[in-house]
C-alpha cells in the first residue's frame, strides 16, 4: 500500500507541474497490458494484433494516403451531422425545457424514438435518402439529438427559479432571460449532453459508414474486416479515440472550465 501511495502522490504532483503528461500517463499501463497479453500469445496474432503491428499498419495506411483521405471524409460527415444535430437539439431542448405543454406532448415521442437505434433505421433511410451525406447526417443527428435534448431539458429545469425572477423584475424580456439566465444556468448540463451526444454521434457514424460508406474511417475499419484483418479496426479505433480526445479537451473542456467551473456552478 505504502509505495503505491507514494507513487500516487508523485503522480499527482507531476500532473500539476506538467498537465500535458496527465493526458499520456494513464495510457502507459493500458499499452503495457496490451503488449503483455499479445506477448503471452493468449490469442493468435491475427485476432489480436500487437501495438507494433498496428503502428506499422497505421503507417502503411498513412503512407498510401488512405488514412488521411478517409479521416477527412469522416470528419466532414461528422461536422455536418454534429452541427445539424446541435442546431436542432439545443433549441428543441430549450423549447421543451421551458414549455410544459411542449414537454407533455413531445416527451413520450422522444422517449419512444430514443430506443430505436440508428441501425434499425438505416435500411429505411437508405431507401429514402440513398447512400449519401443525407443519410449519414440523419443518422448522426438522430444520435446526437437525444442526449442533448434530455440534458438540456434537465439543465433548464434545474436553473434556480429565483434567478429567472430576478431577471424578470429587472426588466428582462423572455428572450433576454433565455440568453442571460436560463442558458448560462443550463450550460453545464448542455455541455455534458454535447459530450455524450457527439461522442455517440461519432459511434453512429462508424456504424453508418459500414453500411452506407464508400469511404471514411468506419469504412476503412470494416472494409478490411470483411477480408479478415483486425489491424485496421484497431487503427481506426485509435484514430477515432485521439480525434475525439482532441475535440473534447480542446473545445468542450475549456468551455467547461471558463463557464460552469469558473462561476462556481460546478466544482472543479
Amino acid at each position: 500500500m505504502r509505495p503505491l501511495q507514494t507513487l500516487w502522490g508523485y503522480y499527482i504532483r507531476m500532473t500539476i507541474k506538467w498537465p500535458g503528461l496527465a493526458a499520456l500517463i494513464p495510457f502507459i499501463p493500458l499499452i503495457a497490458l496490451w503488449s503483455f497479453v499479445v506477448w503471452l500469445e493468449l490469442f493468435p496474432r491475427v485476432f489480436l494484433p500487437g501495438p507494433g503491428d498496428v503502428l506499422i499498419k497505421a503507417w502503411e495506411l498513412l503512407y498510401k494516403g488512405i488514412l488521411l483521405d478517409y479521416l477527412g471524409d469522416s470528419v466532414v460527415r461528422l461536422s455536418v451531422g454534429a452541427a445539424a444535430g446541435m442546431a436542432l437539439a439545443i433549441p428543441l431542448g430549450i423549447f421543451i425545457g421551458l414549455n410544459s405543454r411542449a414537454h407533455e406532448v413531445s416527451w413520450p415521442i422522444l422517449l419512444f424514438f430514443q430506443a430505436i437505434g440508428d441501425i434499425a433505421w438505416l435500411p429505411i433511410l437508405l431507401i429514402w435518402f440513398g447512400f449519401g451525406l443525407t443519410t449519414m447526417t440523419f443518422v448522426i443527428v438522430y444520435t446526437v439529438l437525444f442526449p442533448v435534448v434530455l440534458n438540456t431539458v434537465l439543465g433548464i429545469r434545474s436553473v434556480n427559479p429565483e434567478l429567472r425572477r430576478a431577471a424578470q423584475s429587472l426588466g428582462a424580456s423572455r428572450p433576454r432571460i433565455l440568453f442571460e439566465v436560463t442558458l448560462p444556468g443550463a450550460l453545464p448540463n448542455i455541455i455534458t449532453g454535447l459530450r455524450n451526444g457527439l461522442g455517440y454521434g461519432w459511434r453512429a457514424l462508424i456504424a453508418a459508414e459500414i453500411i452506407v460508406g464508400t469511404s471514411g474511417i468506419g469504412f476503412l475499419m470494416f472494409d478490411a474486416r470483411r477480408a479478415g484483418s483486425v489491424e485496421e479496426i484497431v487503427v481506426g479505433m485509435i484514430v477515432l479515440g485521439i480525434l475525439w480526445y482532441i475535440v473534447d479537451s480542446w473545445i468542450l473542456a475549456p468551455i467547461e472550465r471558463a463557464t460552469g467551473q469558473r462561476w462556481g456552478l460546478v466544482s472543479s
Partner: protein
Amino acid sequence: MAADQTTIFRPAPSRVRQALRFLWPLFGLVVVWQVLVMALDVNPRVFPDVPTVLSAGWKTIIDGTLLTHVGASLLRVSVGTVLAIVTAVPLGIAMGVSRGISTFLTPPLRFFSVLAGIAWIPIATLWFGYGFGAITFVIFNAVFFVVTYNTLLGVSTIPMPLRHAAASLGAGHWQMLTQVLLPGALPNIVTGIRTGMGFAWRGLIAAEMIATNTGLGYMLFLARDFYRTEVIVFAMIVIGIIWLLLDRLLLAPLERATVERWGMVQRS
C-alpha cells in the same frame, strides 16, 4: 382589467388520466403515419401502413416468437445495463470527489467514449466469448460512458456547503456517498440512465447481429434480409414501447418521488 389571476389548486390527475395524457401524442403519431402512407401512396417495401404492421405483429404474438425475442433481448439489456450502472455510478462519483482519480481517468474515458460497440465486437469476442459475453460487453459499452459523465456532472454540481455540512455532522465516506452524493447527483444520474438505456437498446440491436437466433435485433436483421419492412417497423415499435414502459414504470416515478419533490428540478 385582466380577468382574475387567481389560480385554484387542481388535484393531481388520476393515474388513468396521466396515462392518457402520456399516450395521446403517440396515438397522434400513429394517425400521422397512416395518413402519410395513404396520402403519398408509399410502397409497403419502403414503409408499410399501420394495418400491415399490426397484422405482421399479431402473427408473431400468436406463434409466440415475439415473446421469445422480447424475453431474450430484455435479459441481455438488463444484464448489460445493470453492470454498466453499477460500475459507472461509483466511477462517476469517485471522479467527482477525487481530483487525482479524475485527472488519471479522464483521458482514457475520453478516448474510449467514442469507440462504437461494433468496432469492439471482434476483440470483445476474444475476451468475453462469443454470444452472451460479447453482447453484454457491447451493451455495457453503450451505457457506461453516458452514465459516468452524467454522474460526474451531478456530483460536481452539488453545492460544496452540503458536503461540508455532512462531513462536520460526522458522515463517513459511505454515509457521504449514500446520504449526500447519491441523492445530490440523482437528477443527473437519472438523466444519464435515461440516455444510457436508450443507447443500450441501440447497442443491443447492433450486438444481436452476432451469434444469436433470438432477440429483437435478430428479428430485425432477419426481416431486413428478406425485405419484410413491416416486421422491421413492428420490431422498432416493440423496442420503443418496452423502453417507454421501463421509463414510465422505473425512472419517471423515481424522479417524481425524489428530485422533483425535493424541489431540485422544476416539475414538468
